[in-house]
């Protein structure tokens, strides 16, 4: 049964990934200025022989489906094309920038889950009372705030007005970066035993993590709240109360355990939305992550890089969702059966 579930989910994921590459490929085709006119000079474009040779060289004379298969082969070999901006393979660029993004996205995700569950449970317990209304208002405001604007406001307050935070980047300019081991400046500094550098790096992560957390918590709280409300209404919770269990025990042993199952599903979506948030937030904090890479590529109309990022994020997203589904299936056998 479990094996069948894994197999079914695996097949769906593979089909989805093939579709994702197809979308990326078709987007490249949709680009009005094609690569040929971008690469060849005006004069060369006039010469039909050169044009024919160029088309043959790059397989542009092949039918579209052959071109797609070639593109697929390249993608499978990790060849996402060359960024017009950096002049480096897009994959190399991604590998440089991903650890920086993870350095703010992972702590923010962890913080969001803890806060999201705590605040969501609080709101559910206080259902329709002042505390619940305050939480609902707060989450609505959080969801309505443009991420890049919130980042800017936070930077203005903590850096410009109060001067308690660095302006941006991963490390103060006067600190020599640690040798790259994991790609995380905090961890690499700690590994090198340079605690001052590690502390400086942590200070630099504080504001980006704060902004990402605020945005993700707002979403998670709303979900946790409604999941918990449903559980709080269940007969077995009433039974637990009726037999005289203390409230804290009812909440942790009965409500949280059952209510957390759907929260696992939404955490995959939350992670994806956080990745989207980094695109906008990293720009404000000069954070050299995937988001800023995507931003710079997009504003320079560096199409291979933009498509590389979208393909990469789609793959991450799909894989995270697969893992979430698998975890869900393991925890709740009913999912496997349906």
């Amino acid at each position, binding site marked *: 049964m479990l094996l069948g579930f894994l197999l079914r989910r695996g097949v769906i994921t593979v*089909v*989805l990934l093939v*579709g*994702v590459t197809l*979308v*990326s490929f078709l*987007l*490249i085709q*949709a*680009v*009005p200025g094609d690569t040929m006119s971008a690469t060849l000079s005006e004069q060369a474009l006039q010469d039909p022989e050169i044009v024919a040779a160029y088309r043959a060289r790059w397989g542009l004379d092949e039918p579209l489906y052959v071109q797609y298969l070639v593109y697929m082969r390249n993608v499978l070999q990790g060849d996402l094309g060359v960024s017009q901006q950096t002049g480096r393979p897009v994959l190399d660029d991604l590998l440089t920038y991903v650890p920086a993004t993870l350095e703010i996205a992972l702590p923010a995700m962890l913080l969001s889950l803890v806060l999201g569950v705590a605040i969501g449970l609080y709101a559910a317990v206080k259902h329709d009372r002042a505390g619940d209304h305050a939480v609902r*208002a707060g989450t*609505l*405001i959080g*969801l*309505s*705030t*443009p*991420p*890049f*604007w919130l980042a*800017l*406001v936070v*930077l*203005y307050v903590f*850096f*410009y007005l109060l001067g308690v935070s660095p302006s941006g980047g991963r490390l103060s300019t006067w600190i020599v970066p640690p040798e790259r081991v994991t790609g995380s400046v905090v961890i690499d500094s700690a590994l090198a035993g340079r605690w001052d550098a590690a502390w400086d790096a942590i200070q630099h992560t504080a504001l980006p993590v704060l902004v990402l957390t605020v945005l993700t918590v707002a*979403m998670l709280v*709303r*979900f946790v709240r*409604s999941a918990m409300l449903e559980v709080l209404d269940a007969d077995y919770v009433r039974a637990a109360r009726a037999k005289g269990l203390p409230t804290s025990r009812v909440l942790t042993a009965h409500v949280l355990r059952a209510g957390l199952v759907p929260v696992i599903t*939404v955490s995959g*979506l*939350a992670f*994806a*939305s956080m*990745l*989207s948030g980094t*695109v*906008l937030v990293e*720009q*404000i904090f000069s954070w050299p992550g995937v988001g800023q890479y*995507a*931003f710079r*590529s*997009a*504003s320079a*109309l*560096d*199409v291979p890089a*933009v*498509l590389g*990022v*979208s393909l990469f*994020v*789609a793959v991450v*997203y*799909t894989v995270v969702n697969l893992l979430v589904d698998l975890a869900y299936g393991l925890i709740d056998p009913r999912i496997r059966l349906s």
Partner: protein
Amino acid sequence: MTEPRMSEPRTPDLDADRPEQAEAEQHTDARADRILARRRWPQRLRVAEIHSIWRQPAVIAAAAILAVWVLLALLAPVLTDDPIAQSPDLYQPPSAAHWFGTDELGRDVFARVVHGARLSLPLAVVIVAFSLAIGGLVGLLAGYLGRAADEILMRLTDLVFAFPQIILAMAVAAAFGPSTRNAVIALIIVSWPIYARVIRSAVLSIRTSDFLASSRLLGVGPWQALRKDVIPNSVGPAVVLATLELGNAVLMLAALSFLGLGPRPPAAEWGAMIAAGSRDLSIWWVSVFPGLAILTVVLAFNIVGDALRDRLDPRTARGVR
């Protein structure tokens, strides 16, 4: 399938010719009408419930905010200066002459924020209208036809869902080239799947409902059932989603233009204005006011959408993204 008997306009002389049958038909008609009347109760109840959202002070406040924004957008040319007129008064902080200060080209930030509504509000409506039309059609077909059509259409929406919205929108907008039109197209491309999912699930729940089965027993054909039962009863979830998505469209449009992929300068667009202000923290007024504009508009849409959902569609939580 039997012909949709109930809907056929009965010519009077036909009834006069065969009075017996007409009487018999009237008899069954009366009973059928009673049963068919019942299939519409959810709708009537819903209309009554829509009005009850006005009992919430937050909804009244949100509607007032939206009304003010619509008025500002309509009256912007009368109320304010030219939003793209440059002046030598660069970087002026807020004052009596310039309520929201001036930007790096000496343009009045208040005029630009107010004119921003003339871009964001209609464009959000366009994005939602097209996404609703495309997603609604896909969801309706998938839910109503079922089987292979459902499978194909829903896998197609899964495909778009595999990309985080802003990143796919960014890729599409960058591929087509930065312009207002392309930003709108990009946002429609990334927005329609959520409508398809929501409307499909609404259609599915109606298709399997008892009142649809009973109306089919009474000889209501599939086309009429679609028109009279399925579509009207999917309106609730669609309205809720469209309201929430109006706010989302404003946010996403601002995000795209913040990234330089929206309306081209010197257009007064909120996201682009925030981007301009982000280059220098000391001129906070250049980015704070357009940000507040986005926040108030999106918050108002979210409050109304939330209240509508509590009334119309308590089951579906919003697709969190």
